[in-house]
């Protein structure tokens, strides 16, 4: 677990190991720390298990009360679960990207619903570095910046190596000024 954290500062090397990570997917921005893909997969596995349990219950109930073909629910659900676990994590991961500019942070995410946010550093009110139990296992952290804006006042950037996130926090902290509004 600590291994990732110690290696984290050179996440570029990790990224270079990703052979099929073409810059066209995230406009050539910095990709997230690669263990994030595993984290997405773990989350997807949990969701897929939940889905399969629900599907099994629905299937059993349907089978008991109505004479339906077995597998009417379970087969599509299994198909979707496989999609979730084996296909989606990589696709979600490669659509994320961020860029630490000199004066601004840029966060790109999503494909069908794509959002590309720029926050100037001097507009940031305060910063959080958050880490959940699963994230800790992968040595990942989420950087959360708060602006005074009403729309999109909280910009989150998950999947950073903890050391990177802390570095970014220190960089941004230098730009925070009092009484912006």
């Amino acid at each position, binding site marked *: 677990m600590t291994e990732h954290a110690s290696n984290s500062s050179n996440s570029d090397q990790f990224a270079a190991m990703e052979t099929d990570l073409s810059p066209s997917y995230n406009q050539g921005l910095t990709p997230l720390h690669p263990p994030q893909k595993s984290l997405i997969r773990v989350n997807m596995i949990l969701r897929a298990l939940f889905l399969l349990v629900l599907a099994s219950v629905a299937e059993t109930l349907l089978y008991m009360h109505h004479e339906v073909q077995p597998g009417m629910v379970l087969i599509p659900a299994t198909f979707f679960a496989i999609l979730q676990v084996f296909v989606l994590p990589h696709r979600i991961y490669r659509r994320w990207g961020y860029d630490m500019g000199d*004066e*601004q942070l840029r966060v790109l995410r999503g494909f*069908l*619903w*794509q*959002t*590309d*946010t*720029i*926050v*100037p550093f*001097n*507009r940031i009110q305060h910063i959080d570095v958050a880490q959940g139990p699963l994230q800790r296992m992968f040595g990942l952290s989420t950087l959360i910046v708060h*602006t*005074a*804006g*009403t*729309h*999109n*006042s909280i*910009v989150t950037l998950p999947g950073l190596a903890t050391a990177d996130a802390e570095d970014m926090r220190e960089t941004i902290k230098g730009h925070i*000024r009092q*009484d*912006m*509004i």
Partner: protein
Amino acid sequence: MNDEVTTALDRDAAPFRRLHPLSIILKSLSMLGRNIVAIFVLHFSLFDQNFFYTGLAALALISLVVGVTALIWSRFTYQVTEREIRIKSGLLNRNNRSIPFDRIQDVSLEQKLISRLLGLTTVALETGSGGGEDGQLDALSRADAEQLRDTIRDYKAGLRAAATPAENHQSATDTPPLFAMNNRRILIAGLFNFSFVLLALLGALAQNLDFLLPDGFFDPRSWIDAFPEQDTINAFGSWARIGGALAAILSLVLIGFVSGIVRTFVREYGFRLDRTDSGQPGFRRRRGLFTLTDMVMPIHRVQAAILQTGPVRQRFGWYHLKFTSLASDASGETDHSAAPCASLAEIEPILEECAIRPAPADLVFQGVNPAFWWRGTIMVSLLLTAIALGTGLFVHAGLFGIILLAVPVGLIKYLNWRHHQYALTDSQLYVRSGWWRRISTTLPLRKIQTVDVSQRPLDHPLDLATVTIGIAGGSSIRPLKIEAIQFAKAMDLRSQLISRTASSPTAG
């Protein structure tokens, strides 16, 4: 360290004070008002219309409410120190809140009708920490409230005095107001404030008092059953029936107008906007017929100016000027109303006060991609076709006509597209949107917080994008957006916005 010492001194120096004792009556009345319906319900149900029992219950309720309110009052204390206000409250869960004067965005004084009769004033302190009032003193005597406001103002003036020589205090009443509305102007504003609120109110009242109405009043079937039996209706000629329908529509419209005028008068009566220079330069707004409000908003808190009008209103040259600011308006509006009904010539000097320039006449506005209207229209038409087919085939053939709804929807979308435009100058962004509710926003670029470029699924094939701009304050449901422009154009616009934001670090 040093700070701690001084605050400790302050804490000893300033006495803890309670709210005005009459506020017990004020609070009790408002609480009783909420429970009076329960008494009525009990009177008619449980007590079987026995006045003695009802009287007893009412007495018990009144003593309970007054007792609890008095207890809450006795546990509510506040303390005004040199640099902050501390509020201690709560019966069981004690809450100790301190609000530094530095963090107070604006102070508003409000007098509801009953408070005015009792000579009380509610003080609301906005810190803009998002959602709800941050500190409310409900209520103080008028003199205490004004003194508190002056204390806060003087504190801020003292801060400024360190940098610039102290300005001489001048009372705002001597100088002419920036903007004021006489009754005629309020009437005009009311005419354009056409609303069906009164109608909705009557409906809600009818629904709550339905024990007075015959059974099945709200059941359409009972009405359909009743109609054929009414020979009187059949006896009228078709012209009379059309006349009746017209009269009904006219009376609805009349109710709409009257309720709009009444609402506007209640809210805007005696509207007056001043510039105050004591303390920080700010706008001071006073208005209200029953509920008097007196609000001061520092000018540097103004984030953007919004000019709202409508197709008819614009023809007459009337606009509603609002300011976006982090602290939300006490009346629940997201933007601070600065001139509810004013001509452009009247608005210009107000904008000048906060260094916002109205759009120059020769400024070229850019339209957005026509997909803005035709894409939405196609989607709605497809949906309507599906509904029309479904209902038309299975319910009634006449329901095929649902598809005709696509025409007005398309028309409105087309008009909205024509009115969605934007323009960028060196220091300001202008965005216009809406055909019926015409909103044009003027945003100084240094007030931009974040900029998003987003694409939804249907944007990808057309390579379109939406630019969303985060401002401090304003509606979170309806942020400032430029919709349906080419992706490359959106990225270009954003880089221009951001570069001008970042190059002017002394915002605020």
